[in-house]
């Protein structure tokens, strides 16, 4: 499986409601290493899905961006609407569609309000 297969795929929640497209993958160190994974092995832990990708791409997702003023507000608003999906909740990946076992409302927001 390649990152490209996941990036851009649309996530549907348990009731078939689209949650958004996958904008970013978060990898967490941990678990037993496998061949070629090196030490520590990095596992796909969460998918960051949201309606608009440009904010993540430009780096306004969860980074200390100090400006320029109108952009920070606008892009932060966009990013706030994206959600985190744990890989454990993913039930199936079929081409451009990812099904998860939770409902949309149960998913936590991507942006921790602190940053």
């Amino acid at each position, binding site marked *: *499986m*390649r990152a490209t297969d996941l990036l851009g795929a649309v996530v549907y929640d348990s009731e078939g409601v689209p949650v958004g497209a996958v904008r970013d*993958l978060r*990898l967490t160190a941990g678990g037993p290493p*496998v061949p070629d*994974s090196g030490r520590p092995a990095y596992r796909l832990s969460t998918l960051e899905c949201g309606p608009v990708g440009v904010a993540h791409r430009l*780096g306004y997702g969860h980074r200390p961006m100090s400006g320029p003023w109108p952009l920070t507000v606008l892009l932060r608003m966009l990013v706030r609407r994206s959600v985190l999906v744990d*890989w454990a909740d993913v039930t199936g990946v079929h081409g451009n569609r990812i099904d998860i076992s939770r409902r949309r409302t149960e998913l936590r927001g991507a942006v921790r309000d602190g940053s």
Partner: protein
Amino acid sequence: MKADSELSADEMLLDRQILDVDGAAIGKIDDLELTEPEDGGAPVLTAFLCGPTALGPRIGGRLGLWWAAIGRRLRPTDEAYPNRIPIGEVDCVDRAQVRLTVSRDALDADRFRDWTRDHIIGRIPGAG
């Protein structure tokens, strides 16, 4: 691989410049290879993929297909799988750079670069 405990693919890995142990440019991280272990756990990052055949799908559309096709023709064995850099050979990943533990020659040859060096640039006097 020395890196933060949690990495964002988009922010820290994808489209980053890969340097070998002596700082020579290898290419960009065009894609990531994720392998599902036998025990059925979460996919594990096993390699960086670079080269036109990896970049093609990310460009998408006709241009992407054409790009990947050119890349395939440049590969020695004409097989579609892009250049693969196992994570075991990655020294460190941080904001400044992505650095390998091995030198460029140890990796499988970049045919386009070598062809250009031998057939065009190498022939011009002063190429060093």
